């Protein structure tokens, strides 16, 4: 038995080393990452006095503006408003996307019924549909903006879920069948775990698109949220204050995608190996 144990340990070491090569960041990597940001900000700050104040302001002005918007409460109000739209739209996209994705991945009829519509809507740049949404949902509060976020976010989730369900390993389905597995367990133990990484990858793509949808909706439909904050400060040439919501949206994106990536590692640890 000792012979095999040695074999396994060697195998494990191989897996560990292949995993850490690029996937895990080393301290040195972090130094480079933080370093480039600091250097760029430093140059921007030092060169700041030479800039046309109407076009660009140094980072220190943006930081000051950040605290100014925080003090007068504008930032919190806009952020809460935008979050409401983002979360509302994203939840709708997630529920509908996964439901339609699963159904169309499983049943030919649903696939044939939904595919032409999905393909058509996905091919049209989502922005082009925003005016339609604005008209359709006019004067119903946040609805048009939530609908815009949902429209932007749904397709990557839907299409990835569909692919995930369709790409379930046939051999593993047969294994499950060979062990007399019930339909319910087939879903919970085979189809769902196998589709999960696809779904999460779709969710990760959807986050970026949902943020775009959120800002665009606030540009075009109603005068609220972080998007409106950007437009209104741009209109009065307060470039420093305009940058504050931009940075907040960027931070939202980075944080959300990071947490999904973390979740992927937790939900599908076997995918971290290079194969």
């Amino acid at each position, binding site marked *: 038995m000792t012979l*095999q144990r040695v074999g396994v340990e060697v195998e494990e070491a191989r897996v560990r080393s292949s995993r850490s090569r690029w996937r895990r960041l080393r301290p040195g990597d972090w130094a480079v990452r933080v370093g480039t940001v600091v250097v760029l900000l430093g140059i921007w700050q030092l060169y700041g006095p030479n800039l046309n104040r109407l076009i660009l302001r140094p980072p220190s002005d943006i930081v000051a503006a950040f605290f100014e918007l925080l003090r007068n409460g504008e930032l919190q109000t806009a952020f809460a408003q935008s979050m409401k739209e983002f979360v509302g739209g994203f939840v709708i996209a997630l529920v509908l996307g996964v439901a339609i994705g699963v159904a169309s991945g499983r049943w030919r009829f649903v696939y044939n019924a939904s595919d032409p519509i999905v393909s058509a809507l996905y091919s049209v740049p989502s922005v082009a549909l925003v005016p339609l949404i604005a008209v359709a949902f006019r004067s119903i509060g946040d609805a048009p903006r939530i609908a815009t976020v949902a429209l932007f976010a749904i397709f990557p989730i839907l299409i990835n879920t569909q692919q995930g369900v369709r790409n379930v390993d046939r051999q593993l389905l047969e294994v499950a069948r060979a062990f*007399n597995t019930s339909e319910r367990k087939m879903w919970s133990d085979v189809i769902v*775990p196998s589709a999960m990484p696809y779904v999460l990858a779709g969710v990760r793509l959807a986050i970026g698109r949902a943020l775009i949808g959120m800002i665009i909706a606030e540009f075009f439909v109603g005068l609220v949220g972080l998007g409106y904050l950007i437009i209104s400060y741009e209109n009065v040439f307060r470039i420093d204050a305009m940058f504050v919501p931009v940075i907040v949206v960027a931070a939202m994106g980075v944080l959300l995608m990071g947490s999904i990536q973390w979740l992927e590692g937790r939900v599908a640890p*076997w995918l971290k190996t290079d194969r």
Partner: protein
Amino acid sequence: MTVTDRIIVEGATKRYAAVTVFDRLDLAVRERETLCILGPSGCGKTTLLRAMHGLVSLDGGTIAIDGAKVASPRKNVAMVFQHFGLFPWKRVGENVAFGVENLGMARGEVAARVARYIELVGLKGFEDHYPYQLSGGMQQRAGLARALATEPDILLMDEPFGSLDAQTREILQDELLRIYAAQPRTMVFITHSIEEAIALGDRILVMTSRPARVRELIAIDIPRPRTVASVIAHPRFIELRDHCWRLLREQQVMV
């Protein structure tokens, strides 16, 4: 002791479009014997095994287990796959439990059984590993444990060691002989390795290439308990191997 036939294949025919995989095949698997099915690659051995478990339907003839026609997988029959068939998202313990869970036993009983069979195949201590963390040999030990844990009285083995390196394969062949010696059960073992068929089998069924027919049924008169080394050292081994070789060779010429 009278010899009972557990699996009876009568006139089994399978076609895929224009290709006839096997044609009017007759064979019987006896109680507690290891029947090795040996044949050229692509001769339909695997399809036949899958049909024995009701995973593919026949185009003619019947397969019956204990007198009842096979239509879908049964609980007293378990299968081990060439591709291992482990679920990558399940740990070794969960993979081994997969079949047992479907038998409707209490949670505690399932856990006890899983632990027992993990120990039997030498995977104790690896319960919480994912398949990707194991070598091929260890993965197939888990595949074997999953099948054995359902305590089947018929074991269907689909070239289980076919994708392993020679050394690992021999170690696992010995393990299988040891497990068989401890608890003999009916086993159908598909292989394209003559040595493996002789080492493990009580009888070898040599198949022809497509459409597959039974070329010859050979009794392996090497006494148990066996190890791979003891079989190879046995005076009958060379004769049996040469005989099987000749039978397979004539297939190659026909192709």
